[in-house]
């Protein structure tokens, strides 16, 4: 990009960050309480939460990698995008309402309604923190790459600087506003992202006279050899891991996302379970329209930029959206796109940080180190210190792994959520016999089997794009192991349950009645 564009990107980004910071500061809960810090005092409305969920869900990769994937592998890329939208039906039908009615702040709170508090809190806290670590590392390394692309930061020190700024701003927003701070960033993001994607989609469609069939025809024509099969399955089904690998990836995407703690924690921010339902409903419409737009952009990139053009750019797949923006609106549109991509990162890292802070303080620290943090005000002080510590650690670790190929961490995280957290939530809601032992088995067991399988997969060794490209201990043929680890997670939860005699019918009654009627659910607090 020309130096002038870099300056403009800086300027636009500074304006967006300033607007966000003012919003965070003006809307911060006063006085701050523990409930306000973790879940906005449950004061959020359905519309605000719906928009915030949309923003929390849409990573930079959902625009950049996804549109590139669709441009290059065509039909299978579009099917992949579809699975990301459909995943929200799991949140709507199984997770949102019962979670709002039974949980307080964290995953550990949900489990301790029915289970022995200490073991399940530690398990729930650890799995939340591990998922946070991997997601955060991925986000931060993506920030480094983004800085290289959009701000011309070609050196490692420049990229580390960008990571440090993102980390510092995220920490600052969370410190000022808690969950409300994250929500503000997410609201700003959803507005600018939806506007940008809508404009780009209209520009693409406009080039083809709003005739999608013509757009698809041009995409085929400009894809060279790959063009013949662009609109038919085969791009990803034909990968070296075989067809089942892609099936595994699709199923994991659908099942895993509703079980990501940083997503489902947001259901605790609304006043009632009905608002939780309404917010997911809004999110589904937004996500659905968003991914349909991303498909238009993907096929648009294939049609307008062409297969050759995408592959010859430095970012290859991930650069398709930028090249398309350059064709559609020249440098100004690329500037807007680059600034929006940074805003996309902030909104996700802030939400992630809230999940880590509450899991650490509320679930792990109270039970392991602190023991007696029973006073909410003392816990709030610990939570704020934890926010700073987590922010600093995230920047330091990300800086250290900047050069590594860690893109597999994203799918690893979703697989852990689907194999360790989803079974626990499903048994928790629907199985009266389920007990502490079962929950501990499904969480640790689901997590262990996933990590083990991925460690032995081509994502870690034995392929040029692996984490350790020089060694080869890949015994599992697939990079995406959900098709094995999800059933194992469910099975371990079952085995763990029947191995223990514990059965608490009273606690199950409380769980069921709270989940289905909202009787005894946590109330919004006035701040």
């Amino acid at each position, binding site marked *: 990009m020309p130096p002038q564009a870099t300056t403009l990107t800086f300027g636009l980004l500074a304006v967006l960050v300033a607007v966000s910071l003012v919003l965070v500061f003006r809307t911060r809960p006063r006085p701050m309480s523990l409930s306000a810090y973790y879940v906005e005092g449950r004061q959020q409305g359905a519309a605000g939460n719906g928009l915030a969920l949309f923003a929390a869900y849409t990573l930079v990769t959902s625009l950049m990698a996804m549109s590139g994937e669709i441009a290059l592998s065509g039909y299978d890329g579009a099917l992949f995008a579809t699975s990301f939208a459909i995943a929200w039906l799991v949140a709507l039908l199984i997770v949102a309402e019962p979670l709002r009615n039974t949980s307080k702040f964290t995953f550990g709170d949900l489990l301790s309604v029915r289970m022995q508090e200490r073991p399940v809190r530690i398990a729930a806290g650890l799995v939340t923190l591990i998922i946070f670590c991997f997601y955060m590392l991925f986000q931060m390394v993506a920030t480094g790459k983004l800085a290289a692309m959009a701000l011309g930061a070609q050196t490692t020190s420049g990229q580390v600087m960008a990571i440090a700024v993102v980390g510092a701003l995220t920490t600052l927003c969370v410190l000022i506003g808690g969950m409300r701070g994250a929500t503000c960033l997410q609201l700003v993001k959803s507005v600018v992202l939806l506007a940008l994607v809508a404009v780009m989609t209209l520009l693409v469609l406009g080039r083809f006279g709003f005739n999608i069939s*013509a757009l698809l025809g041009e995409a085929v024509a400009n894809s060279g050899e790959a063009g013949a099969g662009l609109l038919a399955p085969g791009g990803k089904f034909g990968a070296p891991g075989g067809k089942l690998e892609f099936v595994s990836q699709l199923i994991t995407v659908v099942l895993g996302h509703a079980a990501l703690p940083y997503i489902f924690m947001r259901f605790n921010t609304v006043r009632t379970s009905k608002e939780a339902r309404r917010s997911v409903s809004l999110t589904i419409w937004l996500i659905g329209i968003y991914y349909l737009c991303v498909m238009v952009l993907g096929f648009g990139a294939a049609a307008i930029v062409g297969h050759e053009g995408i592959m010859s750019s430095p970012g290859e797949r991930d650069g398709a959206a930028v090249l398309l923006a350059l064709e559609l609106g020249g440098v100004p549109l690329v500037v807007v796109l680059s600034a929006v991509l940074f805003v996309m990162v902030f909104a996700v890292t802030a939400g992630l940080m809230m999940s880590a802070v509450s899991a650490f303080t509320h679930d792990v620290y109270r039970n392991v180190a602190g023991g007696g943090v029973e006073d909410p005000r003392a816990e709030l002080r610990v939570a704020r210190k934890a926010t700073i510590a987590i922010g600093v650690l995230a920047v330091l670790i990300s800086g250290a792994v900047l050069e590594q190929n860690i893109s597999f961490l994203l799918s690893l995280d979703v697989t852990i959520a689907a194999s360790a957290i989803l079974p626990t939530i499903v048994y928790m809601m629907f199985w009266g016999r389920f007990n502490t032992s079962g929950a501990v088995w499904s969480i640790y067991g689901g997590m262990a089997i996933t990590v083990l399988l991925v460690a032995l997969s081509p994502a870690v060794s034995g392929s040029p794009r692996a984490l350790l490209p020089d060694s080869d201990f890949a015994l599992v043929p697939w990079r995406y192991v959900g098709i094995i680890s999800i059933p194992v997670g469910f099975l371990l939860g079952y085995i763990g349950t029947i191995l223990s005699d514990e059965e608490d019918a009273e606690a199950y009654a409380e769980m069921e009645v709270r989940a289905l009627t909202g009787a005894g659910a946590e109330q919004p607090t006035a701040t």
Partner: protein
Amino acid sequence: MAARFHHIVLPRVVPADRMRPDRARERRQAAGVDARNEQAGGDEAAKGRQVSTTQSTRDEFLEVQRQPEFAFLRAQVRGTILRLGSVFSVWFLLHIALAGWVPELLAVRIIGNFNIGMLLIASQFVLMFAITATYTRYARRAIDPRADGLRAEFDRKRI
């Protein structure tokens, strides 16, 4: 569209006051809820569990759980999740299976450059929006009134 779709996959809306208690009791007994509750009644099972609720509140939860009205609500909610959940799971799994193992079929052109595969993707989005509209509508009309009634009763007893 949601309204028409609604009667295909979900039972009719039964108003909270016109429910048939017999049917609910049968369901409850089939699920063995009675036996389990009586066995555990009054015993201090909460070893190490978060004791945020007092014993009397926990008895009230048990009392609600024993009501036919609650058993009906639970059957209604579970039935809804199961039906709508299987509709989208079956359709999506079928789509994946066709895409993976019969790609030639999905490549067959139907309208312009749209082939069967692209139309299947469109169908996934239509189905997703339809399920969302159906579920929220059904929940609002058939589930919420019953849940609200039970919660109001619970809150009255507590005060």
